C-alpha cells in the first residue's frame, strides 16, 4: 500500500523528535505572542514559553479544555487576524454554543495533506471515485475528505447528506469505488439496497472511510460483509483540525497519529497526570503546525491508549487504539476505572448482537457494587435452570476478566430495562442519589 508523505510518515524517531521539539517551541512562542488566553495561562502558571527545552516539558503546561474554547467564543483562540483566515468551521457541539475554528491558507494546505495521508493509508488512489455523504456545512468532515481526495487525484462526488435512493443510484451509475460516510449511514444504505433489490456486491465499491461516530468492530464486520468493502477507521476532531489526526493502515493495528503535526499524550482523566505508554486514559493533543488555531494540550475527552512499537507498514508514527468512550462516561467503582463501553463489548461478543441491558451501581454498606441487568431474549434465555446459571456465571467471569471487578449479572423480563433515546446500556448510579 502506498504512503502519501514518506518523508514525514516514516521519519526515524530521533529526527521526528527533533522536528517536534522545534515546532513545539515555535508554537508555544507564537501562541504566547498572539493569543491572550495562552499568554494568561503561561503567566498564571509561571511558565516562560521559550524555556521549553524538551518534549517532556509539555507536561508542565496546563490543559486547554472545551470549556476554555466556549469561554473564548467565537474568535478568542485565534492566533492570526481574521483577515488571514480563509475558512471557518464549527465543532459539532450538540448543545449551547459550539466551538468556532479557523484556518489560514497554509492550514488548509496542511489539513489537505493530512487527510490525503489518511485516505492513502486506507487504500484510496487517483483511480477512485469518492462519494462523500457527509454534510457540506459547518462541520469539518465533508470538506476535509473532499480536499484530501482531490489532492490524491481521486474524483470526488460530493453528494452530501440524505436522499438515500439517489445516493444508491449515483453509486451504481457513477461507479463509486470509495464511500465516505458515518457507520450508521453505511448500514442505512445497505438496508435500503436490500429493499430496492440492489446487490451491493454488484457495485464498484471497494473501500469505506468512516467518521462522525466511532466505528465499532461489530459495525465494521457488518458493513464489510454487507457492502463487500474494506472499512477503515480514522480519527479527528474539529477542535484539533477535523479529519486527518490519525488513520488506520492496511495492518489495522490502531490508527497512526501524524506526530509531525500533533503531539499525543495519554493522561489520567481524574488527576491529569501523564500515563506511561500502553495505559488507557484520555487523549490530549497539541498542534505543531497550525497557524490560525493552535491548540496546546487540548483534552479531547476520548479514552484510548498508545502503541509505540513499530508497525509493519513502515510508518514510524505512534498508533492509537480505537477510542473506548468518553472520559466523562468513566465510572469509578471500588476505586477501579470502568468504562461502560467495555461492558458493552463483552456482552456483544458473547451474545452476538447487542442485548438490551442496564448497569446499576449501588452502595451496600461502605462497598460499591455493580449489577448488570440483561433482558431475556433468544440466545440468552434457557429453559434449563442449570444452563441458565452457567450462562450467567460465564458472563460474570468474562466481565471480571476484562474490567478487573466482579459484577452480578441478572436476567430480567423483556421490556423492563430503562432505555435512553432508544439506546440500551444506560448507567444508573444509585450511589449519588
Amino acid at each position, binding site marked *: 500500500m502506498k504512503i502519501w508523505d514518506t518523508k514525514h510518515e516514516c521519519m526515524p524517531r530521533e529526527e521526528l523528535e527533533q522536528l517536534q521539539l522545534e515546532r513545539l517551541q515555535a508554537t508555544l512562542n507564537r501562541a504566547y505572542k498572539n493569543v491572550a488566553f495562552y499568554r494568561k495561562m503561561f503567566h498564571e502558571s509561571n511558565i516562560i514559553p521559550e524555556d*521549553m527545552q524538551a518534549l517532556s516539558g509539555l507536561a508542565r503546561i496546563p490543559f486547554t479544555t472545551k470549556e476554555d474554547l466556549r469561554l473564548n467564543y467565537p474568535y478568542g483562540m485565534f492566533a492570526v487576524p481574521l483577515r488571514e483566515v480563509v475558512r471557518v468551521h464549527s465543532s459539532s457541539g450538540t448543545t449551547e454554543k459550539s466551538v468556532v475554528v479557523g484556518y489560514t491558507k497554509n492550514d488548509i494546505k496542511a489539513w489537505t495533506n493530512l487527510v490525503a495521508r489518511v485516505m492513502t493509508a486506507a487504500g484510496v488512489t487517483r483511480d477512485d471515485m469518492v462519494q462523500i455523504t457527509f454534510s457540506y456545512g459547518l462541520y469539518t468532515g465533508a470538506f476535509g475528505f473532499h480536499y484530501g481526495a482531490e489532492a490524491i487525484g481521486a474524483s470526488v462526488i460530493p453528494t452530501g447528506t440524505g436522499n438515500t435512493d439517489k445516493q444508491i443510484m449515483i453509486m451504481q451509475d457513477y461507479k463509486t469505488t470509495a464511500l465516505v460516510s458515518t457507520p450508521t449511514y453505511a448500514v442505512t444504505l445497505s438496508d435500503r439496497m436490500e429493499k430496492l433489490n440492489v446487490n451491493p456486491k454488484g457495485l464498484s465499491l471497494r473501500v469505506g472511510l468512516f467518521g462522525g461516530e466511532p466505528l465499532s468492530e461489530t459495525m465494521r464486520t457488518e458493513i464489510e460483509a454487507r457492502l463487500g468493502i474494506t472499512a477503515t477507521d480514522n480519527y479527528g476532531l474539529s477542535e484539533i483540525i477535523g479529519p486527518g489526526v490519525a488513520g488506520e493502515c492496511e495492518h489495522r493495528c490502531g490508527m497512526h497519529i501524524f506526530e509531525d503535526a500533533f503531539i499525543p499524550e495519554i493522561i489520567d482523566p481524574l488527576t491529569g497526570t501523564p500515563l506511561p505508554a500502553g495505559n488507557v486514559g484520555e487523549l490530549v493533543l497539541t498542534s505543531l503546525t497550525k497557524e490560525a488555531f493552535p491548540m496546546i494540550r487540548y483534552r479531547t475527552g476520548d479514552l484510548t491508549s498508545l502503541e509505540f512499537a513499530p508497525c509493519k507498514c513502515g510508518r514510524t508514527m505512534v498508533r492509537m487504539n480505537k477510542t473506548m468512550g468518553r472520559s466523562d462516561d468513566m465510572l469509578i467503582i471500588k476505586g477501579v476505572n470502568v468504562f461502560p463501553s467495555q461492558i458493552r463489548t463483552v456482552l456483544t461478543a458473547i451474545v452476538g448482537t447487542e442485548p438490551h441491558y442496564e448497569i446499576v451501581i449501588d452502595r451496600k454498606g461502605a462497598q460499591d457494587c455493580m449489577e448488570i441487568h440483561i433482558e431475556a431474549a433468544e440466545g440468552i434465555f434457557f429453559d434449563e435452570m442449570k444452563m441458565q446459571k452457567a450462562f450467567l456465571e460465564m458472563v460474570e467471569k468474562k466481565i471480571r476478566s476484562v474490567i478487573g471487578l466482579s459484577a452480578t449479572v441478572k436476567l430480567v423480563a423483556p421490556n423492563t430495562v430503562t432505555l435512553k433515546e432508544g439506546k440500551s446500556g444506560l448507567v444508573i448510579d444509585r450511589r449519588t442519589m
Partner: protein
Amino acid sequence: MLRIKNINTYYGKLHALKNISLHVGAGEIVALIGANGAGKTTILNTISAVTPPSNGEIHFEGSAIHNLSPDVIVRRGISQVPEGRQIFKPLSVEDNLELGAYLRYRSHEKRKEIQQDKETVYVLFPQLLERRAQLAGTLSGGEQQMLAIGRALMAKPKLLLLDEPAMGLAPMLVQEIFRVIEELRSRRGTSVLLVEQNARVALKVADRGYVLETGKVILEETASELLANKDVQRAYLGKDKKEIWER
C-alpha cells in the same frame, strides 16, 4: 546533518538566543529570516563557534561540535561566509582563495589538490579567474561576495553558513549569487544555512525556513508556506497591510 537543540547565547548580559532548536538536512537549503537583532547572525556565529553557546547542543553528522574551536569546526566541514564579506583587501584574489585552504596548506601533497579546488571556484565564478591577480580591495561588491563564497568553498565544506550574501548588491548580481548557491547544492550536495534580509529571494531558493523574533523561533515551515504566510509577508517581504487591502 546539522541538529541544534536548545542553544542559548549571550553577549555579556544580553540573552541573544533563547532555546533555539533547528536542523538542516543533507543537501537542504534552509533560510533564517527575521528583523534586525532577531538573532540570525548570532545563530551562524554560534554554530561556527565564533560566539560559542553558553548551553545547548549542536550536532553535526552525528557528533557534538558545541565544545569545539572554530578551526576544528571548519575541519569537520562547516564554513561560514561572514556578513560584509570580510575578504583580505590588500591581498590578491588568488591569495584570498588559498587562505581559504589554510588548514590544508601545510602539507605538500595537498598543494595540487588546492590548485584543483581553485580551478573549480574559477569555473563557478568566471569573473574571479579574470581578476585572479588583482587586489581583492579593488573588486566590485558582487565580485567580493563571490570571492568570499569562493574562499569558504576552498575548505570543502559540507555545510555552508551564508550571512547576508545579497546585501548591497544589484538585483542582477543577487540572482547570480543565488544561482551559484543552488548549483552548489545540486552539483556537490552542499547543505546551506542562509541568513538573508531579502526574505523573498532567500525563500525562493530555500527548501524550508525558520522565522526568528527577539532570539526565539516563532515559525518553522516550508519556504512556499512561509511565502504565503501573511505575517511573514507583512514583516519581512515588504508587503504592507494597506497594500494587501488595496488590492
